[in-house]
């Protein structure tokens, strides 16, 4: 008999998210993703100075802080007719690149790994490594003390959970090391960014900082530490898990979805292209990568707590709340590309980019599109980014040499009387679009489509599910009391819920509610 399971809120993500699934014979047969909170950023920006958008939208997300301000500044520059100086391009790439080095390992160790590890297996470690023994003592002591928060309580480990004490204790040691490294990545970003979270130096038309030699040296030295960690610890860990204990999960393609991928590309290069290329893939046809045409993006609010409006391009949307709307179940809108629901994020980027190392990896191990492939893509692109950041930090001093080297297009700093602009870049979590319309030097309309709106969108007008709603279909849930595979799939997308949702009243005692607080 079909049974409804409600997970509300989902934890170890950004923001407020609810997942509802129907489970029949131990597998998911239907799913709804629900954003449960709203702040109304698009509405509050109306009538404001266009340059404020960079600062304000930066605050949409404090986890990967930076990409929103960056994308917004591109949209405002576009509307102002500004041209970004080369040094500013590189400084922005480095400020934001540091946040990717923050985000990706944090997602793996602190937001996801606890779904795959039986942490308490640490007590069984019998080896002699003094560092690992110290970790063991530490965790065992917490257990004795009766206070293992926040590592417990948790969902119960299942057949995919890693229990080998040697692997688990190494992973826990790396979890702790990664805590320190994520703080260092923030520090790295703040050297040029002012502070983190919420850097201040990316503004419309450029950056506010002209780094001196000492700051560049400091940047390079911390960057090396982070690169070393990524190359020697993070990436090997992901590969060891993905091709080792999690290989069955990887080959089963749990949490696969429809195979539609979209990326705007990101990290602008000197020749006008991007480090990670833009593109679109439909139906998992990896040999048929198509160029992106942003005019084919539409938004649909049929199932959103927003006043009905026709399906149209995001830049033309209005965004007015309607909390009592019939048939609505999420604060998120439903973006579509050629009427198709698209997955965005690291896997989309790597499948469009197709770097040989990544393609060989998934081929050799027969890894299918799914939760594990997403983790692998995230790790792989970290390596590519590390290389690029080394290059950029080498290029920077020459661009800053000479009197009054440019970091800001000050001639276009004052808002024009009218204008329209768009900023399309990928954030760590996927394609991020900002659209601005200026009238009388003020913001007339501001619209955003964020990565999580793509991935966690509700159904559209045609009744087609959002990407995660589809990806959850067929996911095994042998024990309704322990729906650990659902959170594994959900977290593999690295959700960042900054828009909002409300819930459908769960009816009757059949509904099991899991507050993944």
């Amino acid at each position, binding site marked *: 008999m079909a049974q409804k399971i409600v997970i*509300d809120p989902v934890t*170890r993500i950004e923001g407020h998210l609810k997942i509802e699934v129907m489970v029949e014979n131990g597998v998911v047969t239907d799913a709804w993703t629900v954003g449960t909170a709203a*702040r*109304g950023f698009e509405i509050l920006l109306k009538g404001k100075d266009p340059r404020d958008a960079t600062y304000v939208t930066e605050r949409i997300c404090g986890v990967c802080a930076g990409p929103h301000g960056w994308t917004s500044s591109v949209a405002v520059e576009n509307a102002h007719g500004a041209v970004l100086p080369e040094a500013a391009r590189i400084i922005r790439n480095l400020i934001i690149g540091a946040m990717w080095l923050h985000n990706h390992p944090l997602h793996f160790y602190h937001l996801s790994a606890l779904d795959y590890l039986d942490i308490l297996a640490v007590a069984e470690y019998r080896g002699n490594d003094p560092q690992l023994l110290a970790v063991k003592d530490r965790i065992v002591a*917490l257990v004795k003390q009766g206070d293992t928060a926040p590592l417990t309580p948790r969902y119960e480990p299942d057949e995919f959970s890693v229990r080998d004490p040697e692997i688990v204790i190494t992973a826990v040691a790396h979890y702790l090391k990664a805590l*320190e490294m994520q703080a260092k990545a923030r520090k790295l970003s703040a050297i040029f960014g002012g502070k983190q979270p919420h850097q201040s*130096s990316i503004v419309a038309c450029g950056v506010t900082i002209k780094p001196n030699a000492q700051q560049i040296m400091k940047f390079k030295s911390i960057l090396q530490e982070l690169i070393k960690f990524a190359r020697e610890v993070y990436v090997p860990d992901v590969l060891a898990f993905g091709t080792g204990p999690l290989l069955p999960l990887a080959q089963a393609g749990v949490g696969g979805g429809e195979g539609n991928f979209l990326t705007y590309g990101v990290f602008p290069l000197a020749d006008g292209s991007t480090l990670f290329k833009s593109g679109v893939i439909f139906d998992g046809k990896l040999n048929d990568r198509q160029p992106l045409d942003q005019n084919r993006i539409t938004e649909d609010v049929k199932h959103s707590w927003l006043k009905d409006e026709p399906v149209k391009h995001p830049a033309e949307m209005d965004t007015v709340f309607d909390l009592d709307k019939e048939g609505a179940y999420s604060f998120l809108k439903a973006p579509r590309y050629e009427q198709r629901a698209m997955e965005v994020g690291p896997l989309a980027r790597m499948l469009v980019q197709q770097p040989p190392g990544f393609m060989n990896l998934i081929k050799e191990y027969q890894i299918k599109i799914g939760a594990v492939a997403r983790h692998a893509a995230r790790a792989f692109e970290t390596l590519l980014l590390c290389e690029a950041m080394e290059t950029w930090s080498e290029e920077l001093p020459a661009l800053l040499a000479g009197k009054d080297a*440019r970091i800001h297009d000050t001639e276009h700093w004052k808002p024009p009387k009218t204008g329209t602009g768009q900023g399309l870049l990928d954030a760590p979590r996927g394609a991020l679009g900002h659209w601005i319309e200026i009238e009388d030097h003020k913001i007339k309309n501001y619209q955003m489509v964020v990565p999580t709106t793509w991935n966690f969108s509700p159904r559209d007008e045609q009744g087609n599910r959002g990407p995660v709603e589809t990806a959850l279909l067929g996911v095994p849930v042998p024990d309704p009391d322990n729906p650990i595979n659902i959170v594994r799939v959900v977290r593999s997308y690295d959700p960042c819920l900054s828009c909002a949702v409300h819930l459908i009243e769960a009816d009757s005692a059949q509904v099991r509610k899991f*507050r993944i607080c």
Partner: protein
Amino acid sequence: MDLDRLLTARGISRREFIKLLTATAVTLGLSASHVPAMAEAIEKSVTKTPVVWLKGQLCTGCTCSSISSLDPGPEEIILDLLSFRYNPTIMAAAGHVAQMALDETVKAGGYVLIVEGSFPTADDRFVMSGGKPMREKLLETAANALVVIPVGACASFGGIPAAGPTGAVGVGALVKDMPIINLPGCPVNPRWLYGTVMHYLMYQDLPELDAYNRPKMFYGKLLHDNCPRRGRFERGEFLTDWNSDEQQDWCLLLMGCKGPKTYTDCPQGLWNDGVNFCINAGSPCSGCTQPEFYAPGFGDTRVGFAPLYEKQNSFALPGIGGIDAPKVGKAMAGVAAAGVGIHLVARTVSGSKNKREGDGV
């Protein structure tokens, strides 16, 4: 269990423990003479103080900021100093298991409640969690707490969401009759958070607060009075072009700096392990520790700091101390406002190198 046994059980020597406390004290801007009091406070409570961390309308930036401290590092904070019984971003728990952990902690009482994010007053449905309005969860959880610490601009005064359509407010507008320590900022600086928590644990009492319930030890001074660019201000040197080598460390007033109206220790305490802060990166202060941040919402009578990159009108009137300063340090702010005007005029009269400075007056 006494402290020594506790430390032994956790693999920490007493020397390491004192080292951790000293590092903590130094980072928090407390004198090392506080270390014995800190040790004693921890010894008294022996077990880590439980922390419950609730979330309203937020961006998770304050959670992220709180683990971006390097000395003490996030590992020590999470495992050694405090016990995070409930923090949706870092806890392992999921589902009913986690809810039970929260229920038990709340029932037992004796915890520090940290709140991140604002709360909507236009309609509860703008933030729901576990099928309930977050506002109700906040009131229930606050009732049994030792102390309530709203972190960040949103939880303190409504922050950016307060400028929006959801009628967002801070915790103080909803929770009454409870000790509240506001730690505004966008985000909260980890020094402010751990300094306040340690102070509370050491003395079992609130630190000295200002009229907005902000600890004076962190928010007692006007940024403008301690700004590294104050000398430039005094000489009437105002940055108008970020490209100019000459102007690199000039005063950011004309670029919209809210320093003359903002109470914070950013210039001394800095951010991210002391590596930088907005003004040192050439960015104007946005005034994120003030109730005026960012802009008034619908039907809201606050003055607001928007637009952020234009000189504040209230700073412009030469010779008139008419800046609508908060009650705290009113005199000081008045002097600053007058000063702003005088210096702008001086610069213009003496023949400015930058035309736009004159425009700004």
